[in-house]
């Protein structure tokens, strides 16, 4: 038996068994976090939820991570976690409610979204890509396949093609919204300095509160060029901003 054959067999077995093992690990981490939260050990809860989310980001896990961070007084990481929970599942009312609560308590603003970004929040971020792909190819299939297979084009086939094309065209703005929203980030460190230039010795324009939303535009070294909802533009250290799609 050749070595390459053995390696491929090993990899196949690994792929086969890794998924259930991973699932069990995530489940145990999730339950560990829930029990630690119940015992008011928020640091351990945040650690467990954070590890579970790192293995497989899930809306409920991120919501719980946000709660644990909030209980520790970590406003920035809490807001990031809840925003990511909504990014995965916009129907998660608890995460939405927690964001409202946190922003009211910490007197923070929500990100300023363009209309196509608002549209993109109606469904989970990844759904739009699948909807666009499926609707496009459905329209193409309904147009091409009858003639290829020498069938007469029926009314319903044309209706489905038109509908699919319409869905595809309507999903395009949301598609763009998902892309631009993935460039929205949140300040995670308290009193993060907003610098005039991407240098450590730069003059500080202002200090940003943890949880402040910002759009990042450019990366230079370890600094990100960001713009806040108030229109302030400047550089922050990359580690101080956590983007939605991180």
């Amino acid at each position, binding site marked *: 038996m050749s070595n390459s054959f053995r390696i491929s067999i090993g990899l196949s077995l690994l792929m086969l068994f890794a998924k259930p093992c991973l699932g069990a690990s995530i489940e145990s981490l999730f339950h560990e976090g829930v029990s630690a939260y119940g015992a*008011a050990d928020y640091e351990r809860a945040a650690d467990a939820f954070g590890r*579970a989310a790192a293995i497989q*980001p899930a809306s*409920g896990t991120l919501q719980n991570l946000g709660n644990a961070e909030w209980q520790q007084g970590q406003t920035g990481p809490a807001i990031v976690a809840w925003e990511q929970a909504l*990014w995965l599942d916009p129907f*998660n009312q608890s*995460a939405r409610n927690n964001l409202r609560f946190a922003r009211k308590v910490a007197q923070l603003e929500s990100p300023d979204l363009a209309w196509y970004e608002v549209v993109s929040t109606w469904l989970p*971020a990844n759904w739009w890509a699948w909807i666009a792909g499926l609707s496009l190819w459905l329209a*193409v299939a309904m147009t*091409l396949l009858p003639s290829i297979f020498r069938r007469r084009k029926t009314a319903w086939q044309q209706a489905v093609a038109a509908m699919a094309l319409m869905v595809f065209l309507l999903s395009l703005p949301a598609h763009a919204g998902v892309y631009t929203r993935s460039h929205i980030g949140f300040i995670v460190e308290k009193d993060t300095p907003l610098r005039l230039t991407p240098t450590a010795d730069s003059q500080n324009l202002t200090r940003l509160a943890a949880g402040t939303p910002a759009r990042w535009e450019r990366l230079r070294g370890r600094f990100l060029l960001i713009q806040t909802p108030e229109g302030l533009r400047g550089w922050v250290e990359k580690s101080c901003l956590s983007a939605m799609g991180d």
Partner: protein
Amino acid sequence: MKSKIWFLGALVCLLLLLAASRAGAQPAPSSQDPLMNLMLSQPKIDISSPATATVEFEPPVVRPGDEAVYRVNFNALEESVAWPEEPPTVPGLEFQPGGHGEIFQMGGGVMQPRTSFNYHVRAGAPGEFVVPEFSVKVYGKPVTVPAARLQVTSTPPASVVPARRLRVEVPGTNLYAGQPVRARVIYAGPPGSPVQGLAQVQLTGQGFIVDQSAVQQRISNVPRGRTSAPAYVYETTLTPLTAGPVSIMAQGFLAGLHTSGPVVITAPGGSQPITIGGGPPQYTLLDSDPLEISVRPLPRRGELPGFTGAIGTFAIDPPSLDTDSVQAGDPVKLTVTVRGDDASQRVVPPPPPAPGRDWQIFAAMDASGSPASPTSRRFGAPGSSKPVCASFSYTLIPLTTEARATPAIPFSYFDPGRGAYVDLTIPPVTLTVKGGVASADARALTQREPADAETEKEPTLSGLASAPGLATDSLVPVQQRAWFPLLQLAPGAAFLGLWGWDRRRRYLERHPEVVLKRRALRGLRREWRGARQAARAGDTSRFAARAAGALRVACSPHYPAEPRALVGADVLALFPENERAGRVGEVIRRFFAVSDAARFGSAAGQADGLLALKPELDSLLARLEERLRA
């Protein structure tokens, strides 16, 4: 020229006069303003005296393992002292940060600031330890903190008393978030010393609030070893806010009592007399060891309607109405009195229920008519077992004459002893509603209230999700991952293939000769290969049959006809006349003769020397193959 100078001079004088008159026209600060007078009459804070530092160990001699307090005092404002964040380091001494604070002492007509920083020091082994002098900036100028000496010996002099410390006590160390408890700060002083009071007592730490309006101070006997001794007790209400471990530390300045001399209170019955120290205060900063408490969050499960954060044990008196008969549309006041174990417990009135068809209910107000707050309480109440925590009243307006009683108002509290929520719903109170018409305004309010209540609902932190929920393998959107565009190309490639296949199929349908030639080419190659194999095997008859078959197949698309239906003449017809009559024709006839004889005759044909014709056959078949490709 001279007149110009005179003119300019006169202009300047005029401007100066105008400016002087405007300045004089400004109103002088009123000396009659009482607030201003009060501010001006306050003694000044002395910040001009040269800043100095004093330092001490209390006590200066300790046993190994015993604790001493390293205390540094400044005659300056605390804000002005740039105190180092790290404690001093002396080999063999362990420093733990203690309290720090500021107090003002009257002296010489000015208020002199006193700032102190405490450290708790412990040494493991005997010896003499010296904290060397160091410099601290005060008001921006360096001030030298003198060296201090601590003697650690296993046999300290009997006259040395332990360091004066405060003690913090709470009724329990396992509390719920939001559960108010009475915290006591006790200063007993050294044995035999007079009782002294404390000033600026503070409970420091994170995760709790202290109710400054619930402070009580007294001098009472507290246990000290096997006996009891008089001590100063500062009591206040502490409410933990965040769940988890909470550390509480007390600090305060030893202030003595402002009497000209000591006061001795002789207790009846021959008890030990209490001596209260007098004289000017020394303002020594004392602190306590941190007290660790564990705070649990309130359980979400079992929460009852009307829970407003009340934690403890409560009861309500029967609610009372200010009248037992009212006309529809007229307001009536419902008064509710809540009693608890401790009068200082805070109770927020429950919100009024959603307006129904019969009643319009307004939010609870306290006795003064302002919205009820947690502070609306009274201490004590005659004839009741529990003190009154809160008394509030709701204004209700009956909208119809069908109302027979006030609606029940959901209310509940959390009992920490039982660990459960307890229902304390305010019961209905019967009354008579006489005929009348509810005002249009009242009805409009009734209609609008649900919407307003919905929009004004305060967001709160939700509980935990019970399951991980909707999951993905990465937060990066799929359209920004490399595999997604490639995956989208797959159906495109499939459709492109289908389209190409359809075009080819349609082309072949229009040109059937292409199919025939292709089929003939395949057949020609097959028969030719068979002929070659037969020639190698020396099987002349099979060689002849295969060669004739190859010739038939190669010629069939040109008629078109089935290859089996063709005969030698049909094959010859495809060659020019001169070749038919020449060698080519001879070779073809020879092969067909042998093949036909084998197929249709009983005797084998003349096959001798047929194998020698193979090169010519190959050339012939190559020519026919070329024609099929054309």
